[in-house]
């Protein structure tokens, strides 16, 4: 039997969000949008590693050696997370990582803004000095992506996801499930049979 008894309101929320068809479709849209953004962002950076290093260096936050490693590695990291989101593999973990990435990006762009640098974020390739920095739009855009990531962390269940195969056990469960320590339906039926 369940160790905690969910209160009715939370139970209703849980049913509304993790059971509703529209949520599954919405999470699919969020997955595909955020995943595509990451794949494109990474893909545009992979081709020119020196440009990627220059973009990271322009923030003047990391020592040269670290900036080089980030310039080399970040595009692959983005592509990987993007692919996981698009195919719906370990959706919650991937979305959580994407969210952390966005927080880091927002912090980096904000710090560049605050320090009076005049750089392009290099989010989708490019980067470096620019006469006309677009800090606010860049931050707002990343906030939108952060919103998508947060949604997926809360409601990772979605249509057409590899998670549905049960590889990572996150496919059909929302965060609310775990917060409430919800009992696995399989256990319940098992118990019923025993009785």
């Amino acid at each position, binding site marked *: 039997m369940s160790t905690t008894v969910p209160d009715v309101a939370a139970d209703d929320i849980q049913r509304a969000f993790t059971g509703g068809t529209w949520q599954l479709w919405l999470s699919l849209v969020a997955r595909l949008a955020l995943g595509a953004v990451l794949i494109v962002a990474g893909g545009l950076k*992979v081709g020119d590693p020196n*440009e990627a290093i220059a973009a990271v260096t322009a923030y003047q936050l990391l020592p040269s050696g670290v900036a080089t490693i980030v310039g080399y590695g970040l595009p692959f990291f983005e592509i990987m997370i993007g692919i996981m989101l698009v195919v719906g593999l370990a959706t919650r973990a991937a979305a959580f990582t994407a969210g952390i990435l966005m927080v880091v990006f927002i912090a980096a762009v904000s710090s560049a803004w605050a320090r009076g640098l005049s750089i392009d974020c290099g989010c989708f390739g490019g980067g470096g000095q620019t006469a006309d920095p677009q800090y606010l739009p860049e931050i707002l855009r990343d906030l939108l992506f952060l919103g998508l990531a947060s949604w997926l962390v809360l409601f990772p269940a979605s249509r057409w996801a590899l998670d549905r195969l049960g590889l990572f056990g996150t496919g059909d469960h929302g965060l609310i499930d775990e917060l409430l320590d919800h009992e696995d339906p399989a256990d319940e039926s098992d118990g019923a049979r025993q009785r």
Partner: protein
Amino acid sequence: MSSSKDTKNSRREQLAKERAASAAADQRRRRLLTVVGGVVVVAVVVGTGIAVQTSRNDTTQAALPATVTEVGGPIVRNPEATGVPVLDYWEDFQCPACKTMEDATASTVDELATAGTAQIRYNILSFLDGSLGNDSSSRAANAFACSADAGKQGPYHNTVFANQPAIEGDGYTDEQLLQFGVDVGISGDAFTAFQSCLAEGTYDDYVRSVATAGAQAGINSTPTVLLNGVTLDNAVSFDPTALTKAVADASAG
């Protein structure tokens, strides 16, 4: 109710509790394995990516043109001038702003170089290839490095900028880059070497090493001119009088 049934019930409860506990432990273990496995997979993919990019960008074995002392280092126009202020030029042969600067200051820099008032170093970048969708910056940079072997890097550098196409992106043909060599007086055996140096892209790796050095140094716009390692304002680097004065002040200091 018999006591045996009570015992049976409590035993059953006990059993159920144990099963639940071991199931929960199993689940925890499975979740931990999944998380660790996921992190390892991501680390391997990203690590492989870093390794691939590192080897793509590996220029440690790059052939170095004359006057260059280390991978990624500049081509020195007048290495004989030592103990004087150092002017580092970061340019891309396809960059229109660089041409504007060169048009204004090339003769002044010629004088500084000839008189040995300053050591002139050229760090030639090639990032515009990416944005213009050609390979003219890299080929021109390689040709420039080839000209250094003939000792003609100063005039060759100026000739390339003097002949920069009016339309950004038109680039330089191989014939042009070769002809510039003739124009600056590379001849005989030196010209034969120059010719094969262009054809073989002898200094392609060196050119990439300069690009990496520029990226790591945070040089992300051209032209960037540094006097003794300090970036000069465009108002100085584009102005012959101000440039001469800055160099004079630097040597005085």
